[in-house]
């Protein structure tokens, strides 16, 4: 076998590929060859490293140096400096957003330092397209143990004792699910994997499937043995082409090596695994709808009971587990339930992967022990709010979840504590919003999604979400009426309690939580015709506080509709008739001299000018921009 002195782990996750990994790889290869280093230094394409915001990223081993934002132009210099002369190339190293110094070591970068990797244990460390690399990291050892040395009861007991709960959102104990299915007598059973990740802004499962597909397959083999299944499907959405490709490659390799199919590892156990491509309907993430979809029918949920453990796919006992859940099974079998419980809390054991996005500095994929406060994820790992703005809310659980405000940021991330806030842990989408966000608009955004994705089978969901959406649209367009808030709450409760499946039962959560924590915004939209964040165009008037304005001209240059006039070093003015309320000037002003006032606001008179300064028009309750 050839010998390399360094491994360059270049991220080939979807995010980094989009920002140019493949071109960087070609350039690296060529440059290494040119410098005569091609036989000494190996390039390994890995799955998603998690730090998508800084892509393409690359970790260099054994030096543990982390490079970001690689470009083809910089490669010759990088190769010469680091790989030939051994001097890490500072220009491409990680820099803390607020600081100027370069941090070379991966373990010193806050984004990585605070994470604990279990699900993502192989991310960036193995080439996901080579089964040998997975095996080298103890891959398939757990499956071997489960197939040879453990009874189904022992497997189920270990998984139950570990306390691992379904990571798809509902948090149902995985061991219990397996136990139900194992007790049902049937000659045919199915072991299924849910890779139909549909929440906007969530990409945990995609990353696991891309970076470590064998971990999912191994979890399924163990589950199949536990429940007595010999057939299985991984349901993935077709919009995840890279995940599908790597999963198929992994299944082919595993089958060829006798890790799937007939007589696995000569143990006499059979398990056939296939991929089923979903067309991307959100409702197909619901288990009964997903099973209908695999059967070739329209993806619609059906009432439970009977539960899938009794009557699932083709009416046979079936277990459906989420990608992230399955990826943790192998280490649980290898290390035991106590090891798993060493992180997390009593009721929420282990770690959870979150897709951290939105207004934070470090957008990416993070894995943390359950029970740590939201604040640590957002500030220590996420690096705080972008552009020095202030935090407003964090949206957890996607369209089924809710918005959690600042004063609840010390809430520990456990299934119970998050539900108590009105949100859900969900599959792990975590969207951070800053003070530029209109909460009514946010609720409207999620309702637009659920109303669109409602399958239409049950009336409360089909009609109810549409009415919620219409009312929210009215409010954001300035047509809100007295009593709207109460009607929204009332209707939301009806939808929650009477919908057939999880989609309808959770769809009103964004509305309910934003009313609960940001009721004043709804009120100012309805009563004052004022969107204090300046997002809803019909509900804003942008005016310049002439005392604060330095006349620098930044807003004037930025305005796309030439609505701003003024001489240099003289206070500027916005011509309201021309203004299109795009808030570009608000973003451009460095002196906070642009104020957001209610719709139809006339800043002409001197008294009004005084109001602009304090940001409080008559009758208004708020203090300037939210």
């Amino acid at each position, binding site marked *: 076998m050839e*010998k390399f*002195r360094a491994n360059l782990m270049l991220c080939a996750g979807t995010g980094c590929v989009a920002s140019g990994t493949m071109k960087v790889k070609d350039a690296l290869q060529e440059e290494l060859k040119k410098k005569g280093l091609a036989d000494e230094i190996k390039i390994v394409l890995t799955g998603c490293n998690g730090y998508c915001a800084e892509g393409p990223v690359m970790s260099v081993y*054994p030096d543990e140096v982390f490079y970001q934002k690689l470009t083809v132009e910089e490669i010759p210099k990088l190769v010469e400096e680091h790989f030939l002369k*051994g001097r890490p190339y500072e220009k491409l190293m990680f820099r803390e957003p607020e600081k100027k110094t370069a941090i070379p070591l991966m373990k010193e970068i806050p984004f990585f330092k605070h994470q604990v990797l279990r699900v993502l244990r192989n991310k960036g460390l193995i080439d996901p397209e080579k089964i040998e690399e997975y095996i*080298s990291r103890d891959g398939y050892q757990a499956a071997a143990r489960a197939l040879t040395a453990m009874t189904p009861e022992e497997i189920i007991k270990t998984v139950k004792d570990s306390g691992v709960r379904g990571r798809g959102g509902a948090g149902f104990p995985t061991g219990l699910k397996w136990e139900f299915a194992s007790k049902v007598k049937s000659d045919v059973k199915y072991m299924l994997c849910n890779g139909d990740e549909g929440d906007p802004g969530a990409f945990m499962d995609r990353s696991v499937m891309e970076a470590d597909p064998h971990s999912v397959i191994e979890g399924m083999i163990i589950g199949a043995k536990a429940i007595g299944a010999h057939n299985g499907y991984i349901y993935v959405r077709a919009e995840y082409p890279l995940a599908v490709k790597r999963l198929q490659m992994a299944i082919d*390799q595993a089958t060829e090596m006798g*890790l799937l199919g007939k007589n696995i590892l000569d143990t006499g156990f059979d398990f056939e695994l296939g991929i089923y491509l979903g067309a991307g309907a959100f409702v197909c993430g619901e288990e009964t709808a997903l099973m209908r979809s695999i059967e070739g029918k329209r993806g619609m949920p059906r009432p439970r009971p009977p539960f899938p453990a009794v009557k699932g796919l083709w009416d046979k006992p079936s277990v459906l587990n989420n990608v992230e859940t399955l990826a943790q099974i192998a280490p649980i079998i290898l290390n035991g339930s106590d090891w798993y419980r060493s992180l997390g809390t009593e009721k929420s054991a282990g770690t959870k992967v979150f897709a951290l996005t939105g207004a934070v500095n470090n957008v990416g994929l993070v894995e943390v022990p359950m029970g740590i406060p939201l604040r640590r994820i957002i500030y220590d790992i996420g690096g705080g709010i972008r552009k020095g703005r202030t935090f407003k809310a964090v949206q957890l659980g996607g369209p089924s979840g809710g918005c959690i405000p600042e004063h609840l940021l010390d809430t520990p991330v456990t299934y119970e504590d998050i539900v108590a806030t009105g949100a859900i842990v969900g599959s792990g989408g975590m969207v951070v919003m800053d003070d530029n966000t209109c909460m009514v608009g946010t609720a409207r955004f999620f309702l637009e999604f659920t109303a669109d994705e409602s399958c239409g089978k049950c009336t409360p969901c089909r009609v109810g979400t549409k009415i919620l959406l219409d009312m929210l649209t009215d409010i954001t367009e300035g047509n809100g009426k007295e009593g709207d808030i109460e009607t929204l709450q009332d209707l939301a409760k009806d939808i929650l309690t009477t919908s057939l499946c999880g989609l309808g039962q959770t769809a009103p959560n964004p509305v309910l939580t934003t009313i609960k924590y940001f009721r004043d915004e709804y009120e100012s939209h309805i009563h004052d015709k004022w969107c204090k964040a300046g997002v809803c165009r019909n509900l804003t008037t942008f005016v310049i506080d002439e005392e604060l304005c330095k006349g620098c001209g930044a807003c004037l240059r930025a305005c796309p509709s030439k609505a701003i006039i003024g001489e240099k070093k003289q206070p500027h003015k916005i011509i309201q008739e021309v203004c299109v309320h795009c808030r570009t000037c608000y973003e451009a002003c460095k002196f906070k001299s642009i104020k957001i006032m209610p719709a139809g606001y006339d800043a002409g008179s001197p008294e009004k000018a005084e109001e602009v300064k304090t940001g409080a028009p008559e009758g208004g309750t708020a203090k300037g921009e939210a």
Partner: protein
Amino acid sequence: MPRLKIEDLQKIKEQHRAEFTLREGGYRAKVTVHMGTCGIAAGARAVMTALMDEMAKAKSTDIIVTTSGCAGLCAKEPLATVELMNQPPVRYCDLNEEKMREIFREHVLGGAPVEKYALVVGSETTY
């Protein structure tokens, strides 16, 4: 690819151990070839190639090789430093391919520093 038996899993793991030592850490020995401009001019490139060749022949799994810049003693280049776990680093000077091979066999694999080529033991004091 042949069908695997359970014991094959361990074998595959062993075969790849060297590579994962690089990525996961936990190596026993580290050899640094100083490849500043002076080192390269004096022939560090050939020294490195010889070293990599010995590494491959030895099928070592717990040794890593790295490069660094000028060590400050340009007159005695090519230089290389050998560090064994829990032992002070030994710096060798005026190397060529043959000397490097010998050092690899005697010191890195055998554990006995090659005194005749050694320049110093230990490293400079840093504050």
